[in-house]
């Protein structure tokens, strides 16, 4: 019996197609970056073991395509998520505007027990492009949105250069862990004594 309990955290990454979700995930998990653009066609899963305050846990990261195909997974994709990462491209207004839709889509589908306090993390990616000159969404604007949505932690990253990626995922892990903390006693029923109407089988039905 393992003395130290391990925890598995399901993290899903949402955002428009092309904002760099897959790149972020690969950068974090494999410390590498591929410049070739390939539209994610379905869902993909990566895992990473993380140590945090003397505890070992595993991030199970779910990656989607932007809009279309992942819809086929529906609720199943979102079910039981411990944290949701919303990603946009700081060089694209549309990808930022869509954050709201992604957040709402998540809350509807995942239907978390406490939507107000469900842990989200927002990432503004691709800050490296053009030395930041082609940027169209300001950090201020992004932070204001995060504040309005219940103080969502915010990070600006470059998956290409590996800037801030580790830090962002650190927070993701921490928040996911916090939300999964509430422990409950497991107390199944016991059969009543002297009850003659118990379900019973009469031998093998095969």
């Amino acid at each position, binding site marked *: *019996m393992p003395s130290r*309990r*391990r*925890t*598995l955290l*399901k993290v899903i990454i949402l955002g428009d197609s092309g904002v760099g979700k*897959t790149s972020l995930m*690969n950068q974090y*998990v*494999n410390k590498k970056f*591929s410049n070739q653009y*390939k*539209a*994610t*066609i*379905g*869902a*993909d*899963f*990566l*895992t*990473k*073991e993380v140590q945090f305050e003397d505890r070992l846990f*595993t991030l*199970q990261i*779910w990656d989607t395509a932007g809009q279309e*195909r992942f819809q*086929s*997974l*529906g*609720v*199943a*994709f979102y*079910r*039981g*998520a*411990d944290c949701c990462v919303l990603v946009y491209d700081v060089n694209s207004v549309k990808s930022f505007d869509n954050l709201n839709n992604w957040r709402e889509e998540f809350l509807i589908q*995942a*239907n978390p*027990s406490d939507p107000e306090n469900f842990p989200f993390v927002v990432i503004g990616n691709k800050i490296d492009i053009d030395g930041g000159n082609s940027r169209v969404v300001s950090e201020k604007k992004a932070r204001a949105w995060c504040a309005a949505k219940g103080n969502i932690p915010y990070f600006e990253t470059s998956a290409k250069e590996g800037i801030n990626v580790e830090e962002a995922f650190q927070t993701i892990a921490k928040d996911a862990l916090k*939300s*999964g903390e509430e422990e*409950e006693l*497991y*107390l*199944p*029923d*016991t*059969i*009543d*004594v002297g009850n*003659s109407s*118990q*379900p*019973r*089988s*009469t*031998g*093998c039905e*095969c």
Partner: protein
Amino acid sequence: MASSQSDEPAPEEREIDITTSTEPGSDVLWVRTGSEQEMDLPSSPSSSGYAGEGGGSTSATTGSLIEIEHDEEVEQEQMRIQNQIDEISISDSNTSWIPGKRHQDEDDGSISWRKRKKHFFILSNSGKPIYSRYGDEHKLAGFSATLQAIVSFVENGGDSVKLVRAGKHQVVFLVKGPIYLVCISSTEEPYESLRGQLELIYGQMLVILTKSINKCFEKNPKFDMTPLLGGTDTVFSSLIHSFSWNPATFLHAYTCLPLSYATRQAAGAVLQDTADSGVLFATLMCRHKVISLVGAQKASLHPDDMLLLANFVMSSESFRTSESFSPVCLPRYNPSAFLYAYIHYFDADTYLMLLTTNSDAFYHLKDCRLRIETVLLKSNVLSEVQRSLLDGGMHVEDLPTIPQYRTSHLGQHTLPSDSPESFKEANHDIGGPAGLWHFIYRSIYLDQYVSSEFSSPISTRQQQKKLYRAYQKLFTSMHDKGIGPHRTQFRRDENYVLLCWVTQDFELYAAFDPLADKALAIKTCNRVCQWIKDVENEIFLLGASPFSW
């Protein structure tokens, strides 16, 4: 790979002989009812829709469908070595098998992991891993998510996935509310067998936790049940191991330790006294065999529950060291609630299980046990049990040579014989008369079976496992829906002659030398049935049975 040293050699069956049936119009025996949905796994990842943009050479644990497939040509050598290692570690008798998870270091990226012949997984409907036979659950989180994606994908289409064939692999799914069970196997066992095994694994989980876990998932989809199963790896691994040596796992019947009628009666009588004092079930067991079993009024214990309970008790080391009082659930009796089991070992093999609904009954049951123990010692039950363990059960070599036909019983069930000429003993050097190597007899009304000891031609673990697999296949084919009772099947391949005979009262499975004469084999089966009838008092638990029919 058809290599003879592989762990589970691929059966190369040739059906030389015809199958026969005593009932006209039912001679088509190998029909499959197409009730299960089968779908072929696309070999190209891009057509699956879930393969992800395979980052190519990542060594990280990405989950995608292609992982199920593997390159046949590569690492043949490595695999052969691995198989040999496996063989060594599971050879010999069941007692030498060491329970617990092996190959903990593996994940779906390991070649050795992919080459394993039979994987079992439990996961939640959010894709979180709960149990894996091989490898580390957490390292397999990506793989587990992929399995969930497959299930959900099909479910979203308003359908359910039951079987996926991928090359020589079968992927069998069993969805139980928020719990998904998956088997990936290249053992060529029938789908029905694999599915039955998943059902048992689910049942084993219920024994430990009850169906109340469903409520936890309803309340909180993030629910992680692995902590609740902490330390139960050995329970699952020993159950999975039993799929290859314990016929109860596919016969859905239990077996008794052979004992004289008087001895079993003595044990039954003292258990009955206990049952009358508020105990629901009282069972005295020797390993996985029943010595005696008593149930309170109207309560019946399903053979599968007995199997799962005995496995739970025998695979948990702590029960051996001291008397215990543990919550357990009997899934066939009531899957949603716990009972309490008082468990005590009298010696290394023999243990008592007293099941009650009363969580405060420990001291009462301890008193019961002391009383039972006194009686068992006084009436020499425990020493008789040890003696029976040493003697073993029915040896095919001891099959009585002169059949004493009594038309009352066997007259209506005598197998049709091709050549009614008189008996000619073709006693081969090894095994029993007429080349009889082994048999299993299952009494339908008693829910009990008796299995002969293995004779010398099937003395190794490998041979025994292979024979059980062959029986299992036979069992599945005989239990195909839509075919009436009174059927026989005769199959000959290079390994054995297999004969199966199913009536309303019993099922007989017998294995003979591959060169055995058919007519003689049939006669021998009749003699086996007669023999069993003659000794039924000693091999079965009769009369004071808890089954309510």
